[in-house]
């Protein structure tokens, strides 16, 4: 996994709550058997009209947000389907950080497993950031996982909390499977302990 330590990037505001994974990557793109190449389909139905033209009113189609790598959104981001394709599509598009008041559980795990940092901030700070991103041209944020801080150069600064295990995995780009396989003897011991459950 690609490690995450610090990142500075352009911020795209997407002021909607409960953005579900069906919106992040619609079902017609789940039939592929690869992990890559989903970025062009990110938010497909919101990004393009029925005949495939970019919708001018969608944030990612607006020139000032070109190259955005930080997304700000409403609460309950990533709810619904467990499709990891949502995390793949966000990463593949170029997002490294999603900032929202809350995230759905399965999506949060998927994001973590793909080096995508999720930052939870209170609603009030989110609405400040949404305003800044909407009004200040080329608005950028600096996100540090080392310091657990988000800041801009306009005076905004906030600390965030993150699960320590997740933080370590992200900082070091650790692969969870590798970690688990080190516990092989415990797994084997567990299996022999439950052998009596083989009814």
């Amino acid at each position: 996994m690609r490690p995450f330590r610090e990142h500075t990037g352009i911020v795209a505001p997407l002021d909607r709550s409960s953005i579900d994974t069906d919106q992040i990557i619609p079902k017609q793109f789940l039939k592929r058997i690869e992990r890559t190449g989903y970025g062009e389909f990110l938010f497909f139905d919101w990004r393009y009209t029925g005949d495939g033209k970019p919708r001018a009113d969608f944030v990612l189609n607006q020139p000032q947000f070109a190259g955005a790598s930080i997304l700000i959104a409403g609460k309950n981001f990533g709810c619904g389907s467990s499709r990891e394709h949502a995390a793949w599509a966000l990463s593949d598009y170029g997002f490294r950080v999603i900032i929202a008041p809350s995230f759905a559980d399965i999506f949060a795990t998927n994001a973590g497993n793909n080096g995508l940092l999720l930052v939870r901030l209170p609603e009030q700070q989110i609405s400040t950031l949404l305003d800044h991103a909407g009004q200040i041209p080329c608005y950028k944020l600096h996100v540090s996982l080392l310091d657990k801080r988000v800041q801009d150069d306009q005076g905004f600064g906030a600390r965030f909390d993150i699960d320590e295990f997740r933080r370590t995995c992200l900082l070091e780009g650790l692969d969870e499977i590798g970690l688990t396989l080190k516990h092989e003897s415990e797994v084997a011991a567990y299996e022999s302990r439950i052998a009596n459950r083989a009814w």
Partner: protein
Amino acid sequence: MLAKTLFEKLWEQHIVHQDPDGRALLYIDLHLVHEVTSPQAFEGLRLNNLRVRRPDLTIATVDHNVPTTPNRHIISDPIAAQQIETLRRNCHDFGVQLFDIDSSEQGIVHVIGPELGLTQPGKTIVCGDSHTSTHGAFGALAFGIGTSEVEHVLASQCLWQKKPKTMQIVVDGALPLGATAKDIALGIIGRIGSDGATGYAIEYRGAAIRALSMEGRMTVCNMSIEAGARAGMIAPDETTFRYVRGRRFAPKNFEKALAHWQTLQSDDAARFDATIRIDAAALEPYVTWGTNPGMVVPITGRVPDPNSAASETERTATARALEYMDLKPGTAMEDIAVDRVFIGSCTNARIEDLRATAELVRGYHVHPRVRAMVVPGSQQVKHAAESEGLDRIFRAAGFDWRESGCSMCLGMNPDILQPGERCASTSNRNFEGRQGRGGRTHLVSPPMAAAAAITGHFTDVRKWRFKEAQSA
């Protein structure tokens, strides 16, 4: 001894390794696999030269992509066909049992697990699918996972988990006539919202839950994820044991299993982090009006007005949903006409759902404007229904009778809504475009879907006039 909840018992019984920071490595007893979320996981095993640690605890089927028409071996979409072919190859290469398209036991993964007797009390069950919560109906700890986690479980039979908080939802009293398990689920989500249980594992309790059949319990647990819950579960009882006994993969030494299963209940003094109480008698048949399952009103209700929303966020969300759904505030739900009706999905395509629906449509005919389909959850459900003659009732009433699969629940197969079409659906998600781009989904119970198919608009089933079976 410390009093424990059912969830805590299941959790503790599966800890392989406990980290001091609270994270645990849990052992997984059953891993269900389907074609959409597994190809990249198997590919990961190949790249890292790993094998499936316990193929005997891993079971696969094809459900999301499969057509539901006769002769469905021929999949015209080459990418879907490739995904199914990939699962076949992976199951073959890694020694995993597959219930393929031509198997008499194929079906939606959350329908066949219980049907085969694989789903059992006390197990940890995962699948790369959010509706894995369904299996919690048996007193199992069951939850959906992403593809990286699928790979993790394939390789190690374990998963790292942070312990969720516990919530009990107590549904007391008795369900009134016309309200179903689906209405319990919709009523709960309407009350707590589509993120009301995020971070929690729910245990459903109370007289109305106890009174449900296993089919009904599965419907309730299925929709736990629509409230954001990590898992939903119901303590096993006689209803559960009766359902599991005698099934193909049920324990050979059933009595021994039973002795363990009977301990799987929350202790009287156990404490939950949150409690919600619902009076079943106050539940009604519900219809969703918006674009998430929390946007729901009773059939007697009206489309809400964004201007009476409690907050600015809610106002914009409501206005946006109404625009997508093409609905005007104040419209009576019963006045909303439908174009399509879908009876199916892992929420509501079990035999009991089909029986209740067939009884209602008997002697009637689908409204001329409406196209209605019934998609059994599995081949076993389909055969059971056919042996009871339900398919004849549906066909005579003008319903399309299909082969089993996910079908129009998510439209990854040819069953999709056209832009602008409005559908009464027994599935679990009314997200924008879920059933087809521009399609408008209203979630309802199976009887409510059937009634809408006949009248052409949402109809309160409590007023339904059933027709008697006609002789011959």
